[in-house]
């Protein structure tokens, strides 16, 4: 069963207490241990791999050396035969036989190391993929856990606040009212401003036309006061 199916089943169960964690601490610990183990396996396989690869390279080098040796000895056989030294030629031929056998052993070893290398590489790839998968699942478990706990905290807070007394629609309507109110206030402000601006304009015009008193008002007052005194 996939993890998400398990989580779904646990969440659907519904028999839980509010805020009760669906993820028990023990399974988180086991999960963590499994991840650590997988990581350990990968590390070990990587160390093994370098060792086996080194051995494979050594075997390959040995095969090469022996084959060069064989060619050299075949040349010697040719020379011995040219000298009509049949006995020596036979002896060298025997040596070639020994070299051949050794080359075969090294070749087999090399093939086996190569096999081992491929197996290790495959295993590292598979375990790495499994590890990534486990880590992803682990994050899923922890996220679910964290969401559950956060929800518990929110629910406690929410239940004690006044906001939960309202339905979603009521909340929305209140917010919309506030928005409308703000818009009304803004446009009222604009209208008022326009009116004030209008008055100012009119004042200016009337002043200019000499219908109402302009800046000379103070001087007029002073003149009147002087007249009184006088």
């Amino acid at each position, binding site marked *: 069963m996939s993890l998400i199916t398990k989580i779904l089943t646990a969440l659907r169960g*519904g028999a839980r207490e*509010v805020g009760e964690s669906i993820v028990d601490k023990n399974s988180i610990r086991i999960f963590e241990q499994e991840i650590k183990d997988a990581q350990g396996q990968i590390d070990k396989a990587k160390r093994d791999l370098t060792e086996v690869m080194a051995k494979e390279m050594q075997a390959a080098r040995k095969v090469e050396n022996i084959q060069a040796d064989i060619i050299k000895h075949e040349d010697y056989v040719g020379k011995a035969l040219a000298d009509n030294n049949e006995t020596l030629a036979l002896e060298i031929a025997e040596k070639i036989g020994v070299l051949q056998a050794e080359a075969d052993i090294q070749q087999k070893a090399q093939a086996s190391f190569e096999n081992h290398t491929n197996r290790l590489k495959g295993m590292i790839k598979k375990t790495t993929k499994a590890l990534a998968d486990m880590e992803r699942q682990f*994050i899923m478990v*922890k*996220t679910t856990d*964290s*969401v559950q*706990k*956060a*929800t*518990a*905290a*929110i*629910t*406690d*807070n*929410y239940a004690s606040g006044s*906001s939960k007394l*309202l*339905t*979603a*629609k*009521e*909340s*929305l309507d*209140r*917010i*919309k009212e*506030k*928005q409308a109110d*703000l818009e009304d206030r803004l446009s009222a402000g604009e209208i008022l401003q326009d009116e004030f601006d209008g008055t100012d304009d009119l004042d200016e015009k009337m002043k200019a036309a000499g219908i109402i008193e302009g800046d000379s008002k103070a001087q007029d007052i002073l003149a009147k006061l002087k007249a009184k005194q006088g």
Partner: protein
Amino acid sequence: MNELSTLANRLAEKGKESGNGFPFEVNPIPGEVEVLQIVIEDREELPIFISVSEEQILCMSYLFKQDEIKSGKENEINKAMLIANISMPLSAFSLIDDQYVIYGSLSVNSSLDDITHEIEILSDNILESIEAMREYLN
């Protein structure tokens, strides 16, 4: 979690900044996992809750409870929400127990601007989705 209180302080300052046109308050809620309650001016009825885990910052708001759905409309609203889900920028719907929620999640490495942006978008999406689901609700 120390990081959360740092985030709370930085968010609170950002929320107070005049001229961002989106003032909000930050109230920490204690619990096993600490949560921040974000109360947006003039939208106090629908607060947003933020929690931070190792991987993600989760911003979530409660939409409505199952019992607020008009009887017989459960399937319709579920389908409608599932359809609307993908068109909603940065937010998604979910169900926690009997509570429909809307949420957005961010990487823990998100900047303060990313988080404030998320809060703004989420708040708008909350209002829009309740409006859109109005016909199914009591």
